[in-house]
């Protein structure tokens, strides 16, 4: 039980706490967008904490080696890069398939943007092929 082990354990604890918060947010939040907001952010952060924590924890143990930390850093980086992208795609798909915002929401700038962009009357929400994409 040295300093590295202690740091690792604290990081894992923080990570699991964020996992718990993320699960709580899934239950607690009113609509899809808020739920995605809470769950994605805190689950990503929690995973980072747990992974890096495990790597540092293994450094402190006598069986551990640097290989653990490098592997966990690689996994954490991958998760850090992929998780926001997948959350973005999910949210966007949810919006495009017409899932409404929470009734307490006050403004929807994205809807206004889409409507201002497609002045043509026959095109409704979610049917704008060129919007957002670069090609």
């Amino acid at each position: 039980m040295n300093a590295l082990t202690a740091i690792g354990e604290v990081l894992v604890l923080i990570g699991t706490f964020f996992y718990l918060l993320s699960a709580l947010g899934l239950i607690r939040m009113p609509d899809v967008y808020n739920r995605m907001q809470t769950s994605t952010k805190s689950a990503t952060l929690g995973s980072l904490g747990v992974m890096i924590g495990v790597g540092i924890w293994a450094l402190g143990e006598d069986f551990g080696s640097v290989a653990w930390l490098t592997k966990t850093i690689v996994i954490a980086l991958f998760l850090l890069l992929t998780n926001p992208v997948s959350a973005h795609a999910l949210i966007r798909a949810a919006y495009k398939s017409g899932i409404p915002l929470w009734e307490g929401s006050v403004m929807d700038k994205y809807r206004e943007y889409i409507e201002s962009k497609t002045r043509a009357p026959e095109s409704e929400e979610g049917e704008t092929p060129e919007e957002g994409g670069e090609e």
Partner: protein
Amino acid sequence: MLKRALAIISLLIIGYWLAQGLAGVPFGQDRMLVGQYYLDHVKEQTGAVNAVTAVVVNYRGFDTLGEVTVLFIASTGVGALLWRKKRERTAKTEGSIVLTTGTRLLAPFIMLFGAYIFIHGHLTPGGGFPGGATIATAFLLLYMAFTVYEIPHKAFEKVEGAVGMSYVLVGLIGLAIGGYFLFDWIWQTWGWGHNNIGRLFSGGFIPVIYTVIGIKVGTELSGIVDNMLKEEVRE
């Protein structure tokens, strides 16, 4: 309602019956007969540290050949079922810029990781099938993010056939210079890599076979994805 109740009751009866059959098998006891042999001899007989891949490729290579055949038949079957003269991707919505940029950044890394998995089949968990599936995932990601993306068909189909043949060829070389089909000639006859068990250049022909299988599975699953994402074009 009656149908559902009958289904649940019959499922419960079947489940109870299976559980009764399994109740005689104690959990967590050492009941290995052949397994102990594998565990004892896997290192000096195959050079692999990963016993699973050694069993799958070396001791029971025919199974793997059969699985590769099954995948090939599945790919061919999908191709045959969905065959039309003129088929194109009819996807209209390009992925958002976050998705396309993320795919551009991530796809090479996913392919790299897939290659890592199948090259290190004799050292780490995994092997040809997970590695190939990972590579196919990268292609699926490209298909999902870009409306215009399409795999190079000619090259893919040729590579698929060529690696499938080279698997059989490796086995036939074993038959020629060793003793039987899928005989590990690199390890048993040449003795190549005997002194570095646990490193990359060991494991006899397991890395070779798994590279072949990985490329085959990757191209096959990508081909299935490609077939299923295309729709018939009306003239």
